[in-house]
């Protein structure tokens, strides 16, 4: 199959060899699970259970709120201890509403295979079930998957792309999943293809994962519904825009989603979750997590119930060999720094990295020498050096004019920067500030409209009152007046 290139990108050291050959192990069920109510993009779920209540494995804990939202389920049977604020898996560690479950036993939840054939279900029902299972994008974006499966007659999907690129260094959770459970993934892809009524389904795997490619190609041979292709290893290949360009040759026009050009992208982890949801009626309540980094004693992939705290994972992997220089959730390129180990695994946690000092090695920040490496590396076609210079002087308008909103935050610019300037940090700040500004503007516009409506209403009411008064006065005057007004007395 013909492939297409994309602009920019980098080749970071993959560092996947620590974990890519070790089988996935199941984390023993922790005594307590901390399940945040918001683990996805969109509105937080609303709790349906009360403290003290006993829940079964897979039972609904919190209901989805609105279209862009996802429900949350119990990963294991147990008693609800509390619904209270706990640190979020976020750099700030700010508290978020969390359901705390004290688990009953260490038994894994029983699976009941469903007897019905999901291929007989209408596409809308599949989307509905995926939504009810709380499945979100497992690559880290955590966008509710059901929204992307909902049939849209205006934008029919012709190509389904399954993202098996896993371009982030260190992470091997998708790699291991593809090596160990290829049939389930292929089944999931076929179900998504059925839901979307897509003409083709392409599973794209970076060429640094030959074992995963072989396993998937063998599994796909049976049904011929899925084309398994090898794509070059180049970060950020796994970012939706770059992947669509590589596979189809088309860029997603600015302001459009992949659906705009008839393409839909899902992650292999999502395909696996959809397979589980439709074949065994299990909601999304566990995921594969790569535990790696120079400070971890036995790096490996774990199958972890949602809500297990990072410390449980690290302990199971033999603990830390040194105090980590940086603790990261996700990959080392786009992952987020974690404040400590007492935050839970959520649906989008693809990895837990305890990076040692020599791996982080930022060095001192120096002035920009305008070498242009960031310009060459930027897959979005931006000028990071110019935008960074603007942001250093808090020139938000200047940065916006240069297109900082189009920054995908992939980190290629900061990665190649010889002056070690934290460019992504600046751009995230810029994007946040611009978002604030938009909200402020919308708010003041709303206030202005309301104020205007009020003054119009007051004016209208005053006019109505005046008219009424005038009418009354007129009618009164008429009543007082004699029916036949006499002329001036003679």
């Amino acid at each position, binding site marked *: 199959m013909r492939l297409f290139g994309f602009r920019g990108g980098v080749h970071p050291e993959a560092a996947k060899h620590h974990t890519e050959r070790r089988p996935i192990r199941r984390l023993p069920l922790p005594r307590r699970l901390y399940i945040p109510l918001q683990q996805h993009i969109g509105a937080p779920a609303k709790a349906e259970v009360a403290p003290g209540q006993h829940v079964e494995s897979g039972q609904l804990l919190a209901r989805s709120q609105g279209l862009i939202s996802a429900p949350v389920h119990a990963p294991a049977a147990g008693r609800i201890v509390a619904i209270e604020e706990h640190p979020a898996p976020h750099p700030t560690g700010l508290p978020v509403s969390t359901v705390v479950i004290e688990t009953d036993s260490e038994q894994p939840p029983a699976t009941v295979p469903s007897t019905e054939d999901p291929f007989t279900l209408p596409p809308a029902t599949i989307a509905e079930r995926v939504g009810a299972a709380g499945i979100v994008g497992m690559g880290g974006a955590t966008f509710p998957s059901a929204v992307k499966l909902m049939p849209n007659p205006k934008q029919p999907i012709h190509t389904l792309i399954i993202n098996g690129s896993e371009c982030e260094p260190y992470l091997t959770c998708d790699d291991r999943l593809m090596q160990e459970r290829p049939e389930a993934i292929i089944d999931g892809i076929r179900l998504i293809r059925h839901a979307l009524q897509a003409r083709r389904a392409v599973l794209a795997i970076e060429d640094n994962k030959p074992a995963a490619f072989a396993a998937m190609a063998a599994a796909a041979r049976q049904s011929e519904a899925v084309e398994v292709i090898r794509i070059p290893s180049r970060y950020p290949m796994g970012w939706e825009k770059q992947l669509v360009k590589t596979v189809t040759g088309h860029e997603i026009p*600015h302001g459009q989603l992949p659906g705009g050009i008839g393409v839909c992208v899902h992650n292999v982890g999502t395909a696996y979750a959809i397979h589980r949801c439709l074949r065994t009626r299990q909601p999304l309540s566990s995921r594969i997590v790569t535990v790696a980094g120079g400070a971890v004693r036995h790096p490996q992939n774990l199958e972890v119930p949602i809500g297990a705290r990072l410390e449980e994972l690290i302990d199971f992997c033999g603990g830390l060999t040194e105090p980590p220089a940086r603790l990261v959730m996700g990959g080392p390129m786009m992952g987020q720094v974690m404040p400590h180990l007492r935050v839970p695994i959520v649906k989008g946690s693809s990895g837990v990295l305890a990076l040692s000092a020599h791996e982080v090695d930022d060095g001192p920040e120096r002035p920009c020498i305008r*070498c242009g490496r960031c310009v060459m590396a930027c897959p979005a*076609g931006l*000028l990071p050096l110019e935008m960074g210079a603007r942001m250093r002087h808090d020139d938000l308008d200047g940065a916006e004019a240069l297109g900082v909103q189009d920054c995908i935050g992939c980190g290629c610019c*900061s*990665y190649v*920067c010889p002056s070690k300037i934290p460019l992504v940090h600046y751009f995230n700040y810029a994007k946040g500030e611009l978002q604030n500004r938009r909200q402020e503007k919308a708010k003041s516009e709303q206030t202005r409209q309301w104020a205007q409506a009020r003054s119009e209403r007051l004016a209208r009411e005053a006019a109505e009152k005046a008219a009424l008064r005038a009418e009354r006065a007129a009618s009164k005057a008429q009543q007082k007046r004699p029916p036949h007004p006499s002329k001036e007395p003679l």
Partner: protein
Amino acid sequence: MIVITPQAGPHVRNPGKVPSLMAKVVLALVPATLFGIYLFGLPALNTVLLCVVSALFFEGLCVRLVNKRLGLVLADGSAVLTGLLLALTLPPWAPWWIAVGGTGFAIVVGKQVYGGLGQNPFNPAMLARVALLLAFPLQMTTWVAPAPLFSPAAPDFAQSLTITFNGAAVPDSLSGATLLGQVKTDLDRGLALPQALGAHFSPLGQGIGYAAGSLGETSTLLLLLGGLYLLWQNIINWHTPVSFLATLALLAWVFQQLDPTSYAGPLYHLSSGAVMLAAFFILTDPVTSPATRAGQLLFGAGCALLVYIIRTWGGYPEGVAFAVLLMNALTPLVDHYFKPRQYGRTRRGKPLPLPPLEKMAPSRRGRP
């Protein structure tokens, strides 16, 4: 400078850092420098040392005055590089005050007054070279014929100190002229080019660099070697040097075809003067050249055009320094107009049009 601990990724970085980049550029210049010192003897060594040491001194002085971190700034290696580059463009037996004054001008006026590394609009070494040439034309055009180390004509240690620090005149037996200067004079005297060239020009000699000239500019081949090393190490892009050298060669070839008696050929232009040094070490200065590939191509071509014009029709035999400064001044404009196309947008910034459906939609593959 505010030091922040970034919370955003990436959490691993490419190992390349500014000091190592600068160190590699200096390393690439070492062969040409050593050759220059060999060719012109101990006074040349004095010039190099004076430039490098005074560059560090002036950089440190400026950094102290504005209370920046001295160690951090000096360690970036940019001052050493500026000093070395200036030394390579000076006459090898230049008096000490040319070296020190020129370096001071390069570092203080050329770089630090703008805010230091990364802020200067003009290449500091070229700025200083032009300033020296305009202010001290005699000293800046006093060339010496090669007098290699250990040869009878070479000055000994004491003599070298006299030459550098006491302004001893160059003995007549050693005074020489650069090829560019000699040919220009001959042409001005009404000689036809073949005669003017025939007496002085041998491509091989110019390539090796056994000729009068600036301290480190004579050996075209050693400079080319250093440039290839920088390309191999990914320190510089090929765009600027290739476009510069190719444009210069093309111009020289076209004019030679038009009138071989007045215009010298590509080999003459490529192998003489500061062209090789400029191609790989001056034009590729990241601070003062465009940041995009298209911009770099234009920048190199523009420099070549100016070099050819100044050399051929201008008042100076060599025009690299002037050409570089003129193009440096254009860099912000080039950067403004030569931006990469953003993903999903046209060059004008509008969203891309949707591709036609029949082009996008593939035929059905396999059974679901």
